[in-house]
């Protein structure tokens, strides 16, 4: 499980951290506060572990915080694996598209793995560190992606990070599109029929059972196999078969989200989870998300209703406010730990408390409090 993340020089995340992450967490904030950038950050780390030094076709130099001359993105991820706290951290060079420095260690400081300046690899042996020259290696992303790893701790860290999966806003057009068999869903939900086609019968049945709690009229989803391995999604309700093009957007999104319970990713990130979802089923969705098998979830939301279905304790633990200072740099706080918001939570639901909070004023006050650059003209009305 990922318990924290720190980053420097990644887009608006110039000096940013999300700490104390629970199995389910939720990012809130104004448009442009940096929620999607956090999603991209998780995606970026996942890509590094697959040996990719770029993402989404972007030039890696575009990932550096605007205005900064830095050429390096510093990353730290804290993990909890089998009750042991470990951390992976390192520096990604945007010109070389790879992690030049990289380290995995236990929280007591003992080191398992270290890459120094892209030239030397140090692996902790039984007694002495084993040093190897790697200057000749031509790798991208993390060196972990290129090595045959036998140490179970290093392998676990690598696998955890490689299984980070972020989704952009799930697009109905992408979800509807035909696809070939695939064991993962694309960023916008493309490849859904292909992903569903590789589930085994037990997984399909379990998914259908959960889905029918949302849509009782639904009888089954089916994959229609076409030429050259292409697949289409069909659903059956009331003995009627509905073709992909006519399946409602909400059902497609719910199906895509729930199907990810059976993906190989250990950490899933969904953007604007409430999007296109009828308010009658938000409660069921929030319940499912908080108990997503053995996976860790992070979502973004603008919906007070989504937050209202969290109990107070879950809300306090899991909801992070993202806000920007006047220089456009993103910061995060546990939302319900902010005293003024915490007081509201005593008297109302988490969603109502968000509704009654002026997030613009609050951001200004938090910047003042942290002595961050902020707009002095903005008057503050709530004690942060």
């Amino acid at each position, binding site marked *: 499980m990922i318990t924290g993340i720190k980053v420097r020089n990644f887009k608006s995340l110039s000096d940013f951290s999300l700490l104390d992450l629970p199995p389910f967490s939720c990012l809130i904030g104004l448009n442009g506060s940096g929620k999607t950038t956090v999603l991209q950050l998780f995606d970026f780390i996942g890509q590094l572990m697959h040996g990719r030094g770029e993402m989404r076709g972007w030039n890696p130099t575009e990932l550096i915080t605007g205005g900064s001359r830095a050429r390096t993105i510093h990353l730290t991820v804290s993990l909890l694996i089998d009750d042991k706290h470990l951390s992976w951290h390192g520096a990604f060079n945007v010109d070389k598209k790879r992690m030049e420095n990289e380290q995995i260690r236990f929280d007591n400081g003992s080191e398992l793995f270290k890459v120094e300046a892209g030239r030397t690899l140090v692996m902790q042996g039984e007694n002495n560190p084993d040093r190897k020259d790697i200057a000749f290696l031509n790798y991208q992303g993390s060196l972990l992606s290129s090595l045959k790893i036998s140490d179970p701790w290093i392998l676990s860290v690598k696998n955890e990070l490689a299984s980070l999966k972020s989704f952009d806003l799930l697009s109905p057009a992408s979800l509807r599109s035909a696809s070939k068999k695939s064991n993962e869903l694309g960023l916008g939900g493309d490849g859904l029929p292909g992903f569903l086609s590789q589930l085994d019968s037990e997984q399909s049945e379990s998914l259908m059972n959960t889905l029918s709690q949302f849509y009782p009229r639904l009888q089954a989803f089916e994959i229609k196999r076409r030429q050259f391995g292409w697949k289409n999604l069909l659903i059956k309700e009331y003995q009627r078969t509905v073709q992909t093009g006519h399946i409602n957007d909400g059902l497609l999104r719910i199906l895509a989200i729930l199907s990810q319970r059976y993906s190989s990713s250990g950490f899933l990130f969904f953007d604007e989870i409430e999007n296109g979802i009828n308010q009658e089923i938000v409660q069921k969705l929030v319940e499912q998300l908080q108990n997503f098998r053995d996976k860790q979830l992070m979502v973004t939301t603008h919906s007070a209703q989504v937050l209202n279905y969290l109990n107070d304790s879950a809300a306090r633990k899991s909801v992070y406010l993202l806000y920007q200072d006047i220089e456009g740099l993103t910061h995060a706080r546990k939302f319900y730990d902010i005293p003024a918001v915490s007081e509201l939570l005593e*008297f109302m639901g988490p969603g109502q408390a968000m509704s009654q909070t002026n997030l613009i004023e609050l951001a200004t006050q938090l910047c003042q409090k942290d002595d961050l650059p902020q707009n002095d003209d903005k008057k503050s009305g709530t004690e942060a």
Partner: protein
Amino acid sequence: MTTKNQGLRRSMFFVVSGEGSSDLGTKDLDGSLKKGAMTFILDRLSELSCGQVPDYELQSESDVKQLRKLLNLRDTGPRGTDESKKESEKLWLNSYALAVYAKRKEERAGLVYFRDTDGTRAAPHDRWKRMVDAMYSGFKHADYKWGVAMVPRPKSEAWFLAYYQKNDGTHNAYDKCSRFEDMSGNDGSQNSCKSLLMRWCSCSGNVYQDVITEEEIKCIDWNHIDMPSLTIFRKRFENVITGLNGRSYPHPDCQYTRAS
């Protein structure tokens, strides 16, 4: 019961709001307040504190609903609110809306928000505290400092039992009156505050109309009644009255009113 108090200077202004007509009063046809027993208590405390009786404007429950609508405070909030929070959420929103209204109405307008604690005998203190806290939190959120929560525990009748127990024959007025705060606020109960007050006042009708008149209320020594829900309200009200008159508070603001 219409307001009298001739000869007293009227320069203070209070917005008052609360449920039910018999407690604070009702609106006359011209919109003025036809005072009820709780407003006479306000008059009396104000008179004793600074020799003045305030002018009032009653905001009925439907007025408050309208205020909330104007402020875009949704009636029920987003769906999914925990049942246990629905009451405090409503009180908070009402308090906030009333405080915003009072601030806009007059630069130095006071506000008294009345609610019975009601409920059963189970955990009346917790419920009362939650209600009072919600009200003061709403005032604070509006950045408003002249709000007063008037929340008898369990009901307004309990405050009068403290005095009228003298009619029982076994107690003197003001004896051990905090015990009345633990009574049932459920009017249907045989030993409710209301039925006991009716018995002690030998009244079978509306005790606030028939027995507890403005003159009777003036006879009660309010400082003598030792009931937390009354004392906290009284001290806060006296602080606001003196504060509105530009003087320093006579009492330290207690934990429930610290927000203001």
